[in-house]
């Protein structure tokens, strides 16, 4: 079995568009959340959202290729450019080796809507335009990036709601561990436009704390009132240890275990048993004791039901050991399909820089969240192993454990 290591990271996030910017935002507790007048005007119940800048790809990708890329693929391209550069992998290397891609994505709402609006307006399928078919498939990110970077390994999109990119990384980990691939570009992308989350707003899942956007996403806090939608993209480069050493790569961390489970229960309301099995399996698969985990990056999205049940699952798994826990969604909102990958990067930045970013907005626990050790303010902390949870609609759970190298 191969060891699986991380050799590059890249991110396009509301907390910054470079690793250094994101590290500083995490450390200082800067929020990426704003109140959108556009969303209120359009009819949203909550206008809160992450502020994700649009990349300008005009100088990077010719028009006829850019037409195939919806917003989420553009974010993913920027994150992947950074990650490959961070890993010191250039196009010559990609051309000479079989490198794969597994990326999490679970919506193409704006692209689909725009194309079908044109079709209905003109009653003509050609009115959809040339890019529509490629933009409006769920695998748009992997199909675009695989062509742009001329990748010849596995080419797969993982769609598993808000666990999509954690499961993407988990599957890449398994393929490399078992010797089926040497190097895989992994990550997750989330469109940040309002159309992608209009129906989510419609089920009253979003925070209404519009008078204080930066404190609206407050996972684990007693007075949390819903999530805030985010977006962007995050990419990590995974390789076998031997492959990384052979090419002289800087090894940043090692994926030492992966656990996953299904709740087999309600479509939106999580339970405790499913996430607990994901956590326990991750520890068991890696032969890891709870006390070895120095930090838990929780899935907690700032909803009543979700955070409470995750807190119970963590408490049950860790027993008497009060492992430090935060949810970076307090600063980013819920990055959904991107969250598994972005939160792995946020946790890596903390581990490599010796701190735990405070769970902003956490003032008081409730009965359930009091069972875990939520860190409310940023503190210096040395830890060499972390665990990152991602859970999604339909009761899909994924837990990754990463060790410092």
């Amino acid at each position, binding site marked *: 079995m191969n060891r699986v290591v991380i050799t590059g990271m890249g991110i396009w996030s509301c907390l910054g568009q470079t690793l250094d910017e994101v590290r500083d935002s995490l450390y200082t507790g800067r929020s990426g959340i704003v109140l959108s007048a556009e969303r209120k005007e359009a009819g949203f119940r909550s206008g809160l959202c992450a502020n994700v800048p649009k990349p300008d790809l005009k100088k990077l990708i010719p028009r006829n290729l850019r037409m195939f890329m919806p917003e989420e693929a553009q974010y993913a391209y920027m994150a992947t450019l950074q990650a490959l550069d961070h890993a010191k992998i250039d196009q010559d290397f990609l051309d000479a080796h079989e490198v794969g891609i597994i990326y999490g994505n679970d919506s193409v709402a704006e692209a689909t809507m725009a194309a079908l609006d044109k079709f209905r307006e003109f009653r003509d399928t050609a009115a959809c*335009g040339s890019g529509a078919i490629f933009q409006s498939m769920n695998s748009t990110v992997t199909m675009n990036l695989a062509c742009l970077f001329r990748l010849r390994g596995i080419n797969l999109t993982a769609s598993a709601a808000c666990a999509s990119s954690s499961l993407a990384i988990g599957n890449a980990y398994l393929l490399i561990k078992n010797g089926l691939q040497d190097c895989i570009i992994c990550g997750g992308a989330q469109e940040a436009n309002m159309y992608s989350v209009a129906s989510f707003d419609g089920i009253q899942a979003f925070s209404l704390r519009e008078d204080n956007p930066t404190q609206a996403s407050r996972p684990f806090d007693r007075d949390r009132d819903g999530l805030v939608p985010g977006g962007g993209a995050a990419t990590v480069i995974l390789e076998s240890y031997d492959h990384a050493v052979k090419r002289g790569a800087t090894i940043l961390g090692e994926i030492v275990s992966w656990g996953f489970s299904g709740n087999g229960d309600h479509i939106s309301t999580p339970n405790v048993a499913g996430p607990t099995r994901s956590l326990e399996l991750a520890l068991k698969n890696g032969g890891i004791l709870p006390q070895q985990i120095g930090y838990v990056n929780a899935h907690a999205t700032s909803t009543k039901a979700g955070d409470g049940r995750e807190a119970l699952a963590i408490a049950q798994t860790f027993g008497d050991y009060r492992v430090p826990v935060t949810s970076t969604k307090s600063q980013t909102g819920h990055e959904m399909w991107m969250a598994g990958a972005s939160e792995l990067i946020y946790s890596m930045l903390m581990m490599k820089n010796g701190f735990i970013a405070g769970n902003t907005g956490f003032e008081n626990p409730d009965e359930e969240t009091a069972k875990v050790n939520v860190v409310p303010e940023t503190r210096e902390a040395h830890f060499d192993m972390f665990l990152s949870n991602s859970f999604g609609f339909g009761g899909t759970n994924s837990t990754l454990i990463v060790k410092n190298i």
Partner: protein
Amino acid sequence: MTREEIIEKVKGTLAEEFEVDESVIQPEAVIYETLQLDSLSLVDLVAVVQYTFKVKIPAEELPTIKTFAQLYDYIESHVA
């Protein structure tokens, strides 16, 4: 709509859509080369003309429209 108005509108719209300088859109210039169209982006030419002028260029007519002057002719004869 006069021919001059059609020409101005085509130039502005296609230059923006296909990211070329308006000055390259000359009456006798070949559309496919000037706009760097391939079999897929050709669909965008049809779509943009449809959005802008409410004129549909059927697939069987496309091979007859090679230059911008021919495109202006087609739009002029079909625009409402």
